[in-house]
Structure formats: structure tokens, C-alpha cells
């Protein structure tokens, strides 16, 4: 099979998903920030759309995960990176060639662009052929590259470039300036560098490092009239070389291979992701290739975390806390309770992000992960829309939940974060129970963040998880969430927690400390 794309096993996967559903979970899971961080600095490749295209099959996911695994070999990664740099240089040289005025200058930039292209391609081919590649994507690309490099058009092009470049490199000329007269000749063999002579006369005085008095000259890519005249003189001194250069440019207007330019863009999806997580890995956070299945809802993750938050803490400083989760049949619903600002929302986000990232075929946070290949990812997070009255919010919640339940199937993942919190605790309990029962009946996977501890014990399908509070100091937050029965808070305290009105909570809020629930 001929190679076409390093990102898509099947061309049908390449379509941006933009529905109400995706827009909702993108915001809730902080995916826009996550994607922005990953693609930062790579704007020229226009990678964002690829991060909005969850794949259609487990096989398509594995196609990418294989490539990611190959890229874990440092040298494979390095080879692809230097190839990318070459291609960037090619584009830059071409842009200059377009922009400049004097033809001998344009032609030289064009020649350099082709030379860089050939060198980049050959180097990549040579290096890839040395590695043991196991991914279908890179193996197939490597075969394509090999064929291309051996093709007649490519080898001819390479030869022409080589010959011309060497001729130009041999040119050595002398400019004599006296008054208004400028004379250009070939440089004589016995010429000596006068600066070096001066240096050697005084070398005996040198005691150590010396200050540099070299001056900065403004380097414009353009040539001024005098430079152009000198170059014209040089062209007269070496007429054959410059005639060949002109002919070369005329004959090779389109020299780039389409499949390769596509690869150059698409491979950046992998490189961008790996580059962005590398600093986190250096800080001790783990990433793993997830095991993605359609057939089992027993999901499992160890040492996972909210990637968007990890990026944010990397910039602002702060320690990331990792968590584990696991569902064992018949468990389907993780119910997270515990004090405010304890890491509940972060936990829920991480759960969603992991599944989304797996759908993109990316390595996920954590040292190990078994994830479910869902058909719909549905989220509803409490939003801080202050202007809205309480009744309006409750109504919105109900409408949204209704929509979610309409779409959801037994293959869906639903993440609910403090829904119905705008109503009284009694109503919240009642409504939440009803909704969770429907989800249970549907047999969908669900994460539910709530203050209502009763929800954690609705039946065999629920798993209770609690934010950890050190026993000796309940005001401390560890941001750890573990599998454990609810804490059994008094109703009054639960209320206070719910509205963040405990002594500690008020103090914390007054102090405006940044926190992971923010």
C-alpha cells in the first residue's frame, strides 16, 4: 500500500468535529488551553485542527500510538526534528528568493533552497533506514522516502545542485576601493590578511582573553547598488557559472514532493505533543501509551493528572498531585465527594482529558491506563454565571442534563460536576438520584462530583471516591482523591462546605490563594 499520511490510517478520519457537544466538553475539560499550549510555537504548521479530530476507530488510535512509541527513541525524534528544521529553511530561502530584486541574488537563494531540501531529505532517509521502526506509519513513510531518493528526477536534481554549489563556493574575488573607483578582480594567490599580520606582530603581548571591537554591520538581505554592481562584475569574471545558475532555476520551478510536504506538517502533531509534555516528564510526571478498548468498561489509570493544570503549574510554579482510578464490573459511576478546593473538579477533568487524548491517539498522563473507546463524551460543569438567577440556573441544568441523556448510550462517558448545586440540598439529592439512576440503567460510564454523600452509595454501580484530608490538620488540602467511603460529614458542615463558608474556606478565599479547583 502506498503511503499517504502519518496521521490518518483512513482518509475518512480527517474531519473536524464541531458540534454543541464537543464545544461543551472542550470548555469543561480546559481543552482549549491544553491544545493552545501543545501547539504554541508551531503556528506555521496549523496543527490546531488535528487536535479537534477525535479518531473513528481503535485501529486509527493505535496507528498513532505506534508512531508515538517509535518517537520515544531519542534518535528517531532527533532525526525528524532536524528534518523539520531543514524544511523550514527551505521555505525561508524560497520566500527570500521570491522577495528579492536582483536576479543573481534570487537565483542563489533558490539554489540554496533546493540544496537544503536535498540534504534534508537524504539525511532523513539515511537515518530512518538505520533505525528499527515498528510503527506502520513510519515504516511505510520510510519506504516511500527510499523510493523517492532513488528516483531519477531526485538524483539528477541533486547532482546539478552539487555541481553548481561547488562552482560558486570556489569563487574568490578582490575589490579595490580608491576614492570613487571600484575595481573587481579574481583574488591573487599570494594575498595576505592584513588584520592577521597586525595580530601576529603584537601577539607577544597577549595576556589572555581580549575584548572584541568588531562592529555590527546591518545585514540586509537586499543588495545595494554598489553590491549589485560588484556582483555583476563577479558574474563577468565567472560567466559560465552564472549562466548555469540561471538555467537551473528555470528548469526546476517545482521541485518538492507533495507527500513529503504533507508529512512535514503532520509529523509536527507528534513532535508538538512530545515537546510540550517533555518538561513535565523531566519534573517527574509520567505519561503512558493507553490501552484503548471498545469492549470493556473496566477503566483503570495510575498516577494520572489534569494535563491543562500541569501546563499551568509548570508556568506558574506549583506541585502537581497525581491520582488513580479504577472501575471493576459492575461499577460504572465514580462519585467524588469531599471538601471544596480539594481537587474534585481536577480529578473529573483528568478523567475526561485522558479519554479524549486517547481518542486522539496521544500518550496520556499516568504511568498506566486502560481507557474506554467512547462514542460520546458528555460533560456538564457548574459554571460561575453570577448574573443568572438561581431559578434560571436550575432550569439550564435540567435542560442540559436532558440533552445529555438524550444523546448518551451505553458507550458514552458522562461527567457531571456539581450539577443542581443551585437548588436546595433536598432538591439536589432528589434530582441527582433520578439522573444517576437513569445513567445506571443506561450502563454508561460516569464521573459525578457532588457534595451529596448519599449519591456515593446508590448501589453496586457506584464507586465512592473522596478527597483526602490529613487527619491531624483537616484544613490542609492534599488534592489526593482516593477510593474510600464518604467522610460522613454533618449536614451543617456539608452545607458550609458546599457554600465554601467554613472558617478555613472563608480565610482561604479572602487570601485569594490560587488553587487547583480554580
Amino acid at each position, binding site marked *: 500500500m502506498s503511503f499517504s499520511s502519518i496521521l490518518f490510517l483512513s482518509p475518512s478520519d480527517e474531519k473536524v468535529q464541531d458540534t454543541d457537544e464537543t464545544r461543551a466538553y472542550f470548555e469543561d475539560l480546559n481543552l482549549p488551553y491544553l491544545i493552545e499550549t501543545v501547539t504554541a510555537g508551531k503556528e506555521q504548521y496549523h496543527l490546531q485542527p488535528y487536535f479537534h479530530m477525535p479518531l473513528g476507530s481503535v485501529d486509527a488510535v493505535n496507528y498513532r500510538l505506534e508512531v508515538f512509541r517509535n518517537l520515544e527513541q531519542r534518535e528517531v525524534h532527533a532525526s525528524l526534528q532536524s528534518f523539520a528544521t531543514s524544511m523550514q529553511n527551505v521555505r525561508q530561502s524560497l520566500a527570500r528568493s521570491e522577495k528579492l530584486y536582483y536576479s543573481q541574488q534570487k537565483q542563489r537563494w533558490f539554489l540554496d533552497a533546493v540544496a537544503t531540501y536535498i540534504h534534508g531529505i537524504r539525511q532523513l532517509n539515511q537515518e530512518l533506514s538505520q533505525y528499527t521502526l515498528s510503527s506502520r506509519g513510519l515504516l511505510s513513510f520510510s519506504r516511500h522516502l527510499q523510493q523517492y531518493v532513488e528516483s531519477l528526477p531526485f538524483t539528477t536534481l541533486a547532482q546539478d545542485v552539487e555541481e553548481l554549489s561547488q562552482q560558486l563556493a570556489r569563487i574568490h574575488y578582490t575589490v*579595490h576601493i580608491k576614492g570613487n*573607483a571600484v*575595481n573587481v578582480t579574481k583574488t591573487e594567490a599570494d594575498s595576505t590578511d592584513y588584520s592577521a599580520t597586525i595580530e601576529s606582530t603584537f601577539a607577544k603581548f597577549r595576556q589572555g582573553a581580549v575584548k572584541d571591537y568588531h562592529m555590527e554591520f546591518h545585514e540586509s538581505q537586499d543588495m545595494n547598488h554598489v553590491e549589485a554592481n560588484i556582483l555583476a562584475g563577479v558574474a563577468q569574471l565567472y560567466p559560465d557559472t552564472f549562466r548555469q545558475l540561471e538555467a537551473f532555476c528555470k528548469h526546476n520551478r517545482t521541485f518538492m514532493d507533495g507527500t513529503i510536504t504533507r508529512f512535514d506538517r503532520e509529523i509536527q502533531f507528534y513532535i508538538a505533543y512530545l515537546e510540550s509534555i517533555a518538561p513535565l516528564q523531566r519534573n517527574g510526571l509520567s505519561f503512558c501509551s493507553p490501552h484503548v478498548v471498545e469492549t470493556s468498561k473496566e477503566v483503570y489509570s495510575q498516577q494520572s493528572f489534569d494535563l491543562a493544570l500541569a501546563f499551568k503549574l509548570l508556568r506558574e510554579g506549583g506541585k502537581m498531585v497525581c491520582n488513580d482510578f479504577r472501575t471493576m464490573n459492575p461499577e460504572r459511576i465514580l462519585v467524588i465527594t469531599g471538601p471544596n478546593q480539594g481537587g474534585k473538579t481536577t480529578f473529573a477533568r483528568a478523567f475526561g482529558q485522558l479519554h479524549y487524548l486517547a481518542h486522539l491517539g496521544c500518550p496520556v498522563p499516568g504511568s498506566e491506563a486502560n481507557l474506554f473507546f467512547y462514542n460520546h463524551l458528555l460533560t456538564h460543569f457548574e459554571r460561575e454565571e453570577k448574573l443568572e438567577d438561581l431559578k434560571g440556573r436550575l432550569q439550564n441544568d435540567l435542560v442540559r442534563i436532558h440533552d445529555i441523556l438524550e444523546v448518551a448510550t451505553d458507550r458514552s462517558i458522562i461527567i457531571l460536576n456539581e450539577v443542581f448545586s443551585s437548588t436546595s440540598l433536598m432538591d439536589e439529592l432528589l434530582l441527582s438520584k433520578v439522573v444517576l439512576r437513569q445513567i445506571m440503567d443506561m450502563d454508561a460510564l460516569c464521573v459525578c462530583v457532588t457534595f451529596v454523600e448519599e449519591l456515593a452509595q446508590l448501589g453496586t454501580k457506584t464507586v465512592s471516591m473522596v478527597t483526602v484530608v490529613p487527619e491531624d490538620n483537616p484544613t490542609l488540602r492534599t488534592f489526593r482523591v482516593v477510593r474510600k467511603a464518604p467522610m460522613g460529614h454533618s449536614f451543617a458542615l456539608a452545607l458550609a462546605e458546599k457554600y465554601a463558608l467554613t472558617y478555613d474556606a472563608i480565610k482561604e478565599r479572602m487570601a485569594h490563594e490560587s488553587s487547583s479547583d480554580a
Partner: protein
Amino acid sequence: MKVHLMHDKADFNPDRPLPVNAEELIQDLHVDAVLSAMAVGDDFLLKVAKAGVLASVGDVDGVLYRQDVLKDCLRHEAIVKKLYSIALRAIEADKKHYFGLLNRYPSGLLNRSIDVLLEFIQLLRQLRDIADEDAGRFQSQGFTQLFAMLQEELSDDYFAEIDEHLKQLKFRDGIWLSATLGPGNKGAHYLLLQPHETQSGLLQRLFPGRFGQGYTFHIADRDESASRALSNLRDRGLHLVANALTQSVDAILSFFVQLRSELGFYLGCVNLHEQLTQISVPVCFPKPLPAATRRRQFAKLCDVSLALHLEGPVVGNTLTLHGKELVVITGANQGGKSTFLRSLGLFQLMLQCGMFVAAESAEADLCSGVFTHFTREEDETMTSGKFDEELNRMTDLVTQMQPQAMLLCNESFASTDEREGSEIAQQVALALVESSVTVVFVTHFYRFAHGCYELNMENALYLRAERQADGHRTFRVRPGEPLETSYGTDLYQRIFAAPLDEPSP
């Protein structure tokens, strides 16, 4: 061209960071008094003295090398001062031609360097003349080497070569630039070529291009942008040679700077010598011995800083410390313990930098570094308690010290009680001694001093500040078993003019 008066084979760099413990040494040993006597009000001499005194030479040959140079300086002070003043004038000449706005242009930079070079040549000639005339009178290897080098490197031929360059640098026949084709075929790797007779023949030089070779064009007089472009190209060439010449001038300057630094240290020593002789403090060149030989003895060793402070002779100590790695000093308060400790520290520093010492005769082995741990009046940092601060300093010292170091402790750990303090002092002292550090410990902890004493260590010596039977202090220290009191009662009685019941010894 190397000065090499401070080291046989290396430069002396007064700007090198001082040893990490330098500030503590200065404070604890009152090194400032010595340094200011050397500097006599000159900031530069102070800097050089500080760098010289605080950085040890390291080996016996190095110490002897400096001692010899210093002896020459003491014998031929006038000539040495003349050399020093030539170096000073060179540095002033360089400063006089400051880098102004014009020097941002290659021709400005070039002219400035030519002007400075002309002055330097005069001064270099003077150096050569002194070498020709006076070299024979100096005995040290350092000076003999320096003068021989000046005579060899600054020959008449060499001065002629420089004159030839000064002519060529006027570029009467224009400039020749060579280049290759760089990115986009723009000129690259510009070099300014040396103008010489065969360069395309004389006629070609006078009328570029007219006689057929190459490709010639002219810039119209009124074409301003082209004129600018041409002068820019010319500057590209000139700036290369301007850079080379300016760097050369800097290099000559750096030779003069080096000469000033190295002579500066010795002039400082000469100054100190003069003052000590004036106030009748004995001065001698000590015999340096290799590290770890554990030999140290001196006759009438004085505390230089105290003598300078009092502007007169002070009590000296005569002791033999051969084989001693732990010296514990106890005895009367204000009996001269700290003074002795300081005199010992200064002695070692001065010995190690190649100076004379304040004693009638002396010999000692070199150590890898002198360190001090003196009790401090108060916790200056305010970040930790006094005892914490002391322990903190000690742990830093342990990090800094290497085997063969010398540690001078003055009432260390006095901020805690005798029981705790003694325990720590003993553990620290014994551990260091067993790690080949020589420890000299002034203490009023009887428990500590006596504890060590009872160990019967052969390499330990116990000294007591001397007190005569009438309570009178001689400010000398003498070997003797630690006593259980520091004679605070004496002081009390003197100050309060009333008796105090003395505890039995």
C-alpha cells in the same frame, strides 16, 4: 610577554575571587591593619595587597621565588618604583584617549589606536633601557627573567617592524578587500588584504582598472546613496584591521596592567617592611617547609596588626610546635590568647604569600588554607540563634577545608553552656585533627581542654596565657596543663576593686 614576578610560570590575577573564607579571615585576624599599612592610602595597592595576602602560593618553591623577588625590591627600591611608574603612565595614556563617539566608526577607532600605540612605544623603549642598564644588579630569578625577556622581545628590529605598520595603516593607495559569495550571492568572509608592492603593479594601484584587468566602475560624485554604500563597504574592511590593532593595543596595555599589579604587591610589602622597622618590630624571612611536615617554630612572634595599631613593639612569643596538630590555649582572660591566635594566623598568611613575618626567626610548613572560627559579638544576620549561627559557620568551614588546613578557633561554641559546648568542641576538634587539619583552639571550657588533655595525645600541645603569682599578665603563652579558671576573678577584682572568692583550681 609575561611579567611573572609573582609566580615562576603563571600570572598573578588580583581580580580573581578571594577565597570563600577571606572576609572572615580579614575580620578575625585584623588583616585590614596589615593591608592598609601596605597600601598607604592607595586603593589599587590595597586591592593587590588583599589579593596577594589572602591567596597562598601553595608550594615551598613558589614561596622562595617570591621571597627572592621581595629581597631584590627591598635592595633596589628606586628602580622598582621607576618600573612601576612606567606601567602607571601607560595606563594613564590609554585612559586619556578614551573611546568617544567617533570610535564607533572604524577610522575613528583606528586613529585612536594609532595614537595610543605611539605612546606605548615610547614607554616600552624606556622599559628596555632600564633592562639594558640595571639588569645586572638584580639577583632573583623573577627579575632576571623579566629583564632578559624585555631585552629579547623589544629589540630594535621589532620597533622597526611596528614603524612599518604605522606607515601602511595610512592606506594611501586605497584598500583591497577579498570576499567570497555568501548567502544570496552577497559578499561574505571579507578580509582586508595587506597592501604590498606586487599588488597588481604600481600603475594598477594608482589608476585602478584602467589598464584592463578585471571590471571597474565609478560612483558618481553626486550619488549619495552609492557613496554611502561604498563607504560602508570600505568600513567593513577597515573595521577588521581597526579591531586587530585595537586588540593589540589592549594586549600591550594588559602587559602594563600586569606589570603594575605584580610590582604593586611587592611595593606594598616594601611599605609594610618600612613601617615595621620604624616601630622596631622584628622582621625576618621565614623558612617555608612542605605541607604535612608538621614543623613550626618561631622566636618573638608578634601580632603585626596589634603592633601597627599601637604603633610600637608588642610582646612576642617564642614556641616550638613541631609535630603538634592540636593546640589548646587556656588561661587568663585578657591574657593574650586571642592576640597570640591572631599572630599565628597572620604569620601563616604572610609566610604563605611569600612575605617576611614579624618574628626574629621562624620556620613552618605550609598549609592548604588558614581558616578561622571566632566567637562573634552578635548574630549579625538575625536569622538564627547565636548557637545556630556558630554551628552553621562551622559546618560551612568543614565544607571549605581540605586536609592540611589550619583552623584557628577562638572561644567557639561559647554561646552554649560548658557541657554542651565542650562536647561539640571536642568532637569537632578531634575529628578535624584526625583528618589532618591543624587545630588551634582558644577556649575557656575547662571540660573541653581537660578532656583533650586526658587523652594523652602526642600531637597535642596545651598552652596557657601566662599569669604571674601576683595576678599580673605577661601577655605571653606558655605550655601548661589546662587550669579550671580563666582568672576572671583577677579582672573582677581589678575592675570592682574588691576581692572575689576564688574557686579552688
